[in-house]
């Protein structure tokens, strides 16, 4: 991949990080407010993001659109029969999301905003990822 190719992803990521901060999705307070069902803000964001996502993915599929390199676009399906994995893993993620008040994207956006302490949860998340890799064969999926 050429540098100009990478630049595109850098720009999209920058827009993403900017919106995460401007919409306060990165805020521990907003996550608390969401899990307490005390404001529509977070539900509005996730809900509209999903609606826009569904419509655009449907358009891409319906018209068999190709990507910029001319390759067919395919989204690999996730195996929904692994219910344990999604439910247990998802619940563990949810425990962490509510505790830290940030999921992976916001961790990095907060770091960029000058909150240097986010280095600690990022390193902890890497340790968590690594630990999953080590224990993977022993966990129910």
């Amino acid at each position, binding site marked *: 991949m050429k540098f100009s190719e990478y*630049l595109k992803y850098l720009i999209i990521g920058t827009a993403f990080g900017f919106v995460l901060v401007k919409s306060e999705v990165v805020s521990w307070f907003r996550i608390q407010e969401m899990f307490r069902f005390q404001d529509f803000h977070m539900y509005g964001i996730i809900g509209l993001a999903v609606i826009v996502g569904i419509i655009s993915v449907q358009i891409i599929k319906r018209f068999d659109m190709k990507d910029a390199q001319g390759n067919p676009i395919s989204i690999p399906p996730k195996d929904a029969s692994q219910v344990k994995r999604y439910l247990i893993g998802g619940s563990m993620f949810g425990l*962490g999301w509510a505790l830290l008040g940030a999921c992976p994207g916001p961790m990095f956006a907060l770091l960029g905003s000058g909150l240097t302490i986010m280095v600690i949860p990022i390193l902890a998340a890497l340790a968590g990822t690594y630990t*999953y890799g080590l224990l993977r064969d022993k966990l129910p999926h």
Partner: protein
Amino acid sequence: MLDFLYQPWPWYVAGPIIGLTVPILLLIGGKIFGVSANLRHACAACNFGNVEFFNYDWKTAGKWNFMFLVGTVLGGFLGGYVFANPEPIALAASTISDLQALGIQDFNGLVPDDLFAWDMLGTGIGLTVLVLGGFLVGFGARYAGGCTSGHAISGLSDLQLASLIAVIGFFIGGLIMTFLIYPIILG
């Protein structure tokens, strides 16, 4: 004129922009939006102990996503530092009073200083929130095969049942933490 760069953006502006990330990444390179994959790629780049789960060509799989992640940090710098909103977040009054009852005092920034500060690392509360919280996010995201972006946005956009189950899991865990465990941690 540049006021909108400093002000918080309402949900009906932010939601569609975040949603558009999915088709834009698909269209420019057939890429699937998901932030936590970067954590796996980082483990694959080091792979101490040659763990099988991290044995793959992370450069081919992950370079674009790493650039996206660098952008996310940069976007956070622009949105949260250069064009930082000087006002406290307009939270629901009920949230503020609930959190005050738990002992949270600082409502000025994006996160409370009561928890997110270097000197909190020396306390049980700080270690729990920052280290255990981060660990669970990393472990849980990989166990579930994705995080908020990969499941709640990308997966649901593709109407994947697996992602719906994962998002239900996110809320089971989140509600247990918020209503049952957090009051004990901060108590």
